[in-house]
């Protein structure tokens, strides 16, 4: 592997791990969902130990619920710390969302109203999480299907304020921007022009579905197909603004054979490669 910071990576799926260990594909890094590695032992840890020995790893939490008004998922920060301590990832990330309420886990990333009260709550939880983990966490912009009457600030302002207040970084999911923009009728390009790039430590790319009903479309963040052309195009703009940044292809449902996922990683790699050469020339 080249001696430079990791560029394009892929989500690690159980379907691919044997192949990855045998073929050792030329991919810079892998990302896993923390919650899949919270058991005591067995095949998940067996394979992740081996992949971790060969590649840099990022741990992406999907269950901490930093936006829950009644507190984050009970006991979960300790579990997340065990995974992080064991695997020493180069990135740890979570979501601007909530999923646990009154001890019940709703298996989705649910939306938050963007208010000062929400900001204080999320910042307080994030302070606690970063203190317990002893490191910076990146927070991902959500894909959303509805908005709240209480919304008082744009998402980009909320994320910027959160990063300033807590020192957290941001994970910019370009597909989420496209999904939310379509669902709420805003311009994805304008949103991305206002994004606080100085805090961005990782980029996600994924596929989405368009569900039509009575001539009205909702975009759904499905992670079950190739990345849309619009997302690739915006990704090039994002890299031009942000500079080279670790970029992940997420594919979590209808997982394809490895070469299909690897081709998406190659495409991201080539965008980053070109930008890297331009950066080097400018330096």
């Amino acid at each position, binding site marked *: 592997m080249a001696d430079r910071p990791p560029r394009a990576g892929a989500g690690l799926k159980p379907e691919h791990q044997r192949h990855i260990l045998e073929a050792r594909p030329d991919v810079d890094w892998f990302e896993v969902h923390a*919650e*899949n590695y*919270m*058991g*005591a*032992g*067995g*095949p*998940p*840890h*067996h394979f992740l130990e081996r992949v971790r020995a060969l590649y840099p790893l990022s741990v992406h939490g*999907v*269950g*901490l*619920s930093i936006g*829950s*008004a*009644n*507190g984050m*998922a009970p006991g*979960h920060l300790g*579990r997340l710390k065990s995974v992080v301590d064991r695997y020493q990832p180069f990135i740890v990330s979570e979501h601007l969302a*909530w*999923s*646990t*309420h*009154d*001890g*019940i*886990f*709703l*298996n*989705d990333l*649910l939306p*938050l*109203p963007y*208010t*000062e*009260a*929400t900001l*204080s*709550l999320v910042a307080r939880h994030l302070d606690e999480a970063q203190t317990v983990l002893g490191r910076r966490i990146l927070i991902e912009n959500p894909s959303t*299907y*509805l*908005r*709240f*009457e*209480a919304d008082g600030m744009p998402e980009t302002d909320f994320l910027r304020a959160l990063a300033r207040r807590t020192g957290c970084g941001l994970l910019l999911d370009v597909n989420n921007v496209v999904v939310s923009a379509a*669902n709420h009728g805003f311009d994805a390009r304008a949103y991305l022009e206002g994004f606080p790039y100085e805090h961005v430590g990782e980029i996600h790319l994924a596929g989405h579905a368009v569900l039509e*009903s009575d001539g*009205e*479309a*909702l975009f*759904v963040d499905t992670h079950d197909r190739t990345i849309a052309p619009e997302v690739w195009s915006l990704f090039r703009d994002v890299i031009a603004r942000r500079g080279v940044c670790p970029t992940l292809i997420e594919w979590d449902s209808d997982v394809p054979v490895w070469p299909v996922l690897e081709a998406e990683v190659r495409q991201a790699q080539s965008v980053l490669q070109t930008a890297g050469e331009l950066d080097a020339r400018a330096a």
Partner: protein
Amino acid sequence: MPAQPDGNGLADLQHRFARAVLQAALSVPDGIDQDVRPTRERRFGVYRKNVKASLAAALAARFPVVERLVGEEFFTAMALVFIEQHPPRSPVLAEYGAAFARFLEGFDPAAELPYLPDIARLEWSRQVAYHSADAGVAYVGRLAELPPEALDSVRLGLHPAMAVIASPWPIVSVWTTNTHDETPQAPAADWTGETALVTRPHLDVLVQRLPPGADLLVAELAQGIALGAAAEAVSRAHDSFDLATALATLFGAGAITTLSQGSSS
């Protein structure tokens, strides 16, 4: 937790949101943008579907034989009832489904298949075994190396992934044919009960039939009873108990991790 002035509003919103996500009969909670196209009902429906479909898929992945026995459509309907009554309590989804077998016992529409709950128990034990702690296994040869006088006092340690499911139904036969055969074999006319042994000596989860009385031996061993006393207790309760066959099965499946001598019990 002391409520903040308007943090309270968020708790209230999340309470109503969570209830409406799980219960299809409830209307979309207040506080969501109203004058929008597509409608807020359709938008809220995406969250409902995400939550329920993902949990139903998790259950289907965990209980594939139960799904095959009742059919996909019936399984999904049954899973949705279970999800409403027993939503997950942890973000670690590997832990979700422990209550499914008990739920099936009381699920009237599936009463025609009285063995379904025990099949679910077997499948749940496989799920637990997959994620349980790792441990090295002892080979049966270790037993043969012991001097004959030491056999009675040896204590056998059980693997953390091991589970035993005793059933009045032939659950191992039903599970096996529905797992490995393209067309499941018809059940034998005289169904006899079977006891399943689930183990994971290394990476693969194994399922096999335990010979008569072996489940009782496992229960004795689990209490730290020495082999001699354990075998004697099982023989008293079970005429046809054969210690050699039981040990060969347990060691062969990787159910035993340690052999130790000592007086603790």
